[in-house]
């Protein structure tokens, strides 16, 4: 009985994460039924990942900026600017596609250095600096493109956005073997890591997660990964962007959870003064975050441009809002100090699913905006309610 109660208490403390997963599942199931099964068709799942990849990538950088207590409104314009630069480099300056990719990531870093300088060392609030960036980089995009579109791009470059890993079965197998291999390996690693960390926490006697819940969570996550693996393998295999996104997620989730840098970011967002008095170089950390955000925006810009096979002056319009919404739906706090990379990814998936599902159903963009707005409000309202409920005395 007391075991049951402690399990309930534990679930209560995990309400936010559980709620997020349940929301994702509920939305999936709803659209699966409403679209009579189109949502979870292999081709749609593949498209869903590919078409939302750049928002998810932006969300990974954005969540770190928001945890540190800042915001970045310029990412949409940076996406467009980097796309434009890629177009100019490849089609007008005849730079090889791979060199252009490297240079464009460099452009992103320079953008980050510029904004990071004003924010971290000059002390202008990030809201203002990146609002200015939103305008300036949009302007630079139009100047670079002379208000024209650039198209087409070489096939190798386009693969970055819409390509797939090679089919090892030569198209003869029912399930693509490479994808199945990657999926099984990822599942195995996930399960191994879960067990290892639980054993360590048990050893130091800080584990409060009930065993049944641990198993349920592990089986559930493994199940989801295997299911998506199956769907992808029965279509065209693993999208290249999924590999990029997966690596980014794993690396940045680890950085935020376990690196000294990540700890410093949480410390700055949680209490800037206390962090500074603890010897943390707060300005440098803030600066690095914006450089990182610049590079990540550039990556998103490259993938977006490659996918559309088009550099467009209007590209990336409103991406910053989708990325910010993903982060807050994913449980980050407006005041900083709280948030996770995986939360931001799940938040981004929820937005992606809403976009995708409503498009299939033929819901007009006006209603799509309306519904996304309400979802964001509901998610943050849930957070605030939760905090108040557990606030105690």
């Amino acid at each position, binding site marked *: 009985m007391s075991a049951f109660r402690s399990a309930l208490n534990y679930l209560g403390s995990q309400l936010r994460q559980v709620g997020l997963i349940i929301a994702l599942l509920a939305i999936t199931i709803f659209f699966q039924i409403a679209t009579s099964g189109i949502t979870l068709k292999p081709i749609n799942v593949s498209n869903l990942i590919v078409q939302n990849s750049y928002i998810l990538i932006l969300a990974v950088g954005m969540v770190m900026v928001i945890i540190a207590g800042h915001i970045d409104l310029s990412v949409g314009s940076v996406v467009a600017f980097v796309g434009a630069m890629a177009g100019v480099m490849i089609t007008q300056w005849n730079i090889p596609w791979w060199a252009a990719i490297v240079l464009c990531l460099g452009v992103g870093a320079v953008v980050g250095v510029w904004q990071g300088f004003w924010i971290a060392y000059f002390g202008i609030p990030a809201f203002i600096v990146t609002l200015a960036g939103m305008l300036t980089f949009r302007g630079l995009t139009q100047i670079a493109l002379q208000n024209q579109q650039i198209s087409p791009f070489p096939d190798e470059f386009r693969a970055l956005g819409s390509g797939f890993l090679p089919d090892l079965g030569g198209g003869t197998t029912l399930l693509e073997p490479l994808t199945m291999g990657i999926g099984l390996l990822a599942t195995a690693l996930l399960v191994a890591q879960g067990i290892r960390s639980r054993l360590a926490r048990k050893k*130091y006697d800080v584990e409060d997660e009930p065993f049944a819940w641990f198993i349920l969570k592990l089986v559930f996550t493994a199940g989801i990964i295997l299911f998506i693996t199956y769907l992808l393998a029965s279509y065209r295999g693993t999208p290249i962007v999924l590999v990029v996104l997966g690596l980014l997620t794993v690396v940045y989730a680890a950085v935020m959870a376990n690196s*000294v840098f990540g700890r410093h970011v949480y410390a700055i967002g*949680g*209490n800037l003064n206390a962090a500074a008095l*603890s010897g943390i170089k707060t300005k440098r950390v803030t600066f690095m975050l914006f450089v990182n955000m610049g590079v990540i925006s550039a990556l998103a810009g490259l993938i977006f441009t490659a996918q559309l096979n088009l550099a467009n002056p209007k590209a990336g319009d409103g991406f910053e809002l989708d990325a910010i919404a993903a982060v807050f739906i994913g449980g980050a*706090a407006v005041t900083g100090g709280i948030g996770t990379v995986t939360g931001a990814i799940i938040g981004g998936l929820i937005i992606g699913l809403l976009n995708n599902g409503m498009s299939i159903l033929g819901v007009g963009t006006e209603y799509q905006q309306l519904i996304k707005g309400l979802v964001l409000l509901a998610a943050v309202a849930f957070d605030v309610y939760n905090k108040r409920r557990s606030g105690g005395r």
Partner: protein
Amino acid sequence: MTTNILEMRSITKTFPGVKALQDVSLAVQRGHIHAICGENGAGKSTLMKVLSGVYPAGTYDGEIVFENETVAFKSINESEATGVVIIHQELALSPFLSIAENIFLGNEQQSGGWIDWNKTNLEAAKLLARVGLKDNPITKVRDIGVGKQQLVEIAKALSKEVKLLILDEPTAALNDEDSAHLLDLMKHLKGQGITSIMISHKLNEIKAVADEVTIIRDGKLIETLDMHTDDISEERIIKGMVGRDLGSRYPDHTPHIGEELLRVEDWNVYHPLDHQRKVVKDANISVRAGEIVGIAGLMGAGRTELAMSVFGHSYGHNISGKVYKNGALVDTSTVAAAIDHGLAYATEDRKRYGLNLIEDIKRNISLVSLHKISKRGWVDSNQEIVVAEGYRKSMNIKAPSVEALAGKLSGGNQQKVVLSKWMFSDPDVLILDEPTRGIDVGAKYEIYGIINKLADDGKGVIVISSELPELIGICDRIYTIFEGRITADVPRGQATAEYLMQHMTQEREKDNR
């Protein structure tokens, strides 16, 4: 008989999982000053929140009788309308509004929706006179000191026709002079027939002004003492609060003093905003291994400014002077450099400058010294748990686990987390700024023990405190500081409260040393 203005009968208040108040009864006589004391977390503030309607009627059991009528306040507005006004520890004034605007906030002197400024300022001036404040009512609140802000709060309460004034730790943030003035004012208001309830940790203040004192421990009423008839000593009150005799309030300690560790010479600091104003003037201080050195000064004398400017130039402008560590000149112009040279500074304001309240205990403890538990930039979170667990045991931090959030801990335990953080950085010299502020008596004793242990480990400890008995009780040597200048260097034997106060309040020619 019924000279009681207030009776709270059998109040029980339960939060999920805890009984914060259990069958507590309180009777306050009309026109008296009634003190409530108890350790942190004993339930004092909860009781006052029940009384003032912060916890609305129906969320607690029991009965409240105010002026012979049973009342059931549903909100703080209702209790204020009846004449019960609570002034919280954290002042609730708007810094950018004037004194007059703050006094009449929510109660504007208006005619038909338009503010009558003449009446506002005139009435405010009358109220200010009643609390003995001579400032112009149009002064912005941020331009007056904390002591005066407290008086503005009281003036605001008077504007609401207050019958029962509740003051939650009214002198916690005040210096001795402002505290004395506030206590005088409370007596003065008593003369005008206003009843006060005061929550306080400061037993000398309770002794000075209170007619009765009610002691609460662990959510239960322990006793109500009449300060006039019973012969009540501070020790008697402490015994009630902690439920045991503390013996001495300061642990015995035999110092083992060694070589000089830190010396600060000719230290000058200007105000960060007002570049003309010098806040630290030609200060010279030193601390030796195993020595506990006190810095005594009134609030605003430059104690914290001196400490923070030495520690990584964290305060001030145009800082000049030399810092010697083990006899060698060192650079402490950034916090990181100061930490590298073995300095540590535990702030007087834990919540604003000391802790990340939304993070857990272990991550707060490890923050300064992450490099000690990491390899190539990656933190070993298992080792982090071991380290934090070690401090939880050795420092007696009361928390369910090292993953409890710092913000959920009591003041004393938060302070222990701050001290653990700095002890883990293994400094040679620790500067502790008001290490026992807002901490209950039992935890204070533990903190003194920790300070002694640090000194016994060969570290130099500098303690800044507003409480003179505390400095006299634990320090081997005490500097006094007045208006940014070190005015005396007093060895243990000579340190009496009178002697220190004399040097804290009047400048004297600098000792030629």
